[in-house]
């Protein structure tokens, strides 16, 4: 469901990128779903302690999550970019084979 893996069955171009770099593709998918999951899974952080400064942990966690998600998504974009450039340099051949 992530960007580079978005059309595994239909798009020849994407398919070759994923087939050629399964590890990077998997890392991208994991990062995206992790950034959703760790916010939605409330039991993980619905605690008052440890206090961070004057902030109960619950509030601290959510406030710090924001810049973290920005950085994680930035890293995802970097990986996607690499995926595409690599797929291109691997040449059209790899795309043709999987097609």
């Amino acid at each position, binding site marked *: 469901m992530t*960007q580079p893996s978005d059309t595994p069955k239909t798009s020849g171009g994407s398919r070759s990128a994923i087939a050629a770099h399964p590890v990077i593709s998997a890392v991208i998918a994991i990062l995206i779903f992790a950034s959703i999951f760790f916010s939605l899974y409330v039991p993980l952080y619905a605690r008052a302690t440890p206090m961070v400064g*004057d902030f109960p942990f619950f509030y601290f966690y959510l406030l710090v999550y*924001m810049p973290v998600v920005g950085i994680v998504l930035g890293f995802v974009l970097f990986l996607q970019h690499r995926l595409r450039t690599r797929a291109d340099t691997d040449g059209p051949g790899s795309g043709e084979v999987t097609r």
Partner: protein
Amino acid sequence: MSNVNAVTFTIVVVLFLLVTLIGFAAARWRRAEDMMHLNEWGLGGRGFGTFVGWFLLGGDLYTAYTFIAVPAAVFGAGAVTGFFAVSYTIIVFPIALIFLPRLWSIARAHNYVTPADFVRGRFGSRSLALAIAFTGILALMPYIALQLVGIQAVLTVMGVGTSSGNTFVKDLPLFIAFLVLAVFTYVSGLRAPALIAFVKDTLVYLMIIVAVLYLPAKVGGWGHIFSTAEAHLKSTSPVTHKPTGVFIPVTGNSQLAFSTLALGSALALMVYPHSVTGVLSTKRRAIIKRNMALLPIYSIMLGFIALLGYVALTDPTTAANVKKANNAQLAVPYLFQHLFPSWFTGVAFAAIVIGALVPAAIMSIASANLFTRNIYREYLNPGCSPANELQVAKLAALAVLLGALGFIVWLPGAQKFAITLQLLGGIWIIQTLPAVLIGLYTRWLHPVALLVGWAVGIVSGTAMVAAKAFASPIYPLDIFGVIAPSYDAISALALNLVISVALSFVFNAAFGSARADATAVTDYV
């Protein structure tokens, strides 16, 4: 107007005039050779880059009602119905990264202006596209009206116009503000909110940074703020005989409410027409992606705005004022007025008023695009010229804005009604998700199945709210446009999905799965 602070009032008026000038000047900004096209007026020429896109999307998604309603909900009920907004604005960006770049690409390849355009092309179904367009317009109407509620909260605290019994005189400032908004939207289209968003975002940032650095110390520091909030929320409410609110959601129920509210709101935002309009106005696919990593900066601010609800709770004067007015939405305006010097109160109030203009303009444009493309051109006047299409869109935007104004000003009790409608709007719009978002990945779902699922989702979602609205008080919270019992939105969406999938099996087996599809697989990447 006896107790109006002259300094505050002057600063608000001056900043509003500045924004008015910008709104009209925007018509000349990034002018295209052929302006007589809906792409120019309705999508700003589809040419905004990362920088403008960031300001536009930020200004679009974080509405004035957000600045008022989120801290109001935190003030009133604490973490679940208020602070869930922070979780919502976290997950909205990774979710957007899954869907919106694809939506951008397909819209660019086929010159789609609205989500309903895409559904029409993808599923080849006019009736499904009409349902999508109709839902979008219906969901946006009360949302636009609620931007007025944000302005009204500020005007009330400023003491402007409240002393008169005459409706027209009482709402004159609101009237002027919205008339100006309607005219510059008509003239400049999406370029106006894009340019004004620079002023809005700058003022909002200034407001929140100063508020976070200055206010907590004035009321005794964060430690005192959190302990006061905790004590207040755990105390028993004299009305309900239950705890006033939730400080930290430790029970399973409150955690489920928290996360379904966050998820439901985030999913609904993906299909709200005004966010689609913002997304489609950008120049390249990479700009959408980049902004999904950059917009969380905006959300940090939202986290602190939400906490202002607790700051207001801690300041005795503000808490007393809000109690006296019996309106939690005034919490932040009263807080600013009490603790800021009057000139900075002016800046902060202007930020909220201008903050209402940007999303209201974009929403009216999104509605106008839907009406023009999917109702007027599709049903009323097929084969109309681009110039004719543009003219209809401009008039539709004008009609939508004036309609919202009339609704709020003349209908008694309209404000509460608008809030209820807005609540329903979030539940309605999420029912378009199977067609719009799942449609981006597969056309396996049958259009008739989608239509039935949509109808069931809307009816069941509405029924769930109707059943509860009579029993318990609701905190209708909107950030990005989606609101409190979004748990209902998720349940109704689940029902919608089950029906869409089940019927698709039946219809595909009975009639075959080959259908017209104007889009090609390579258009999505």
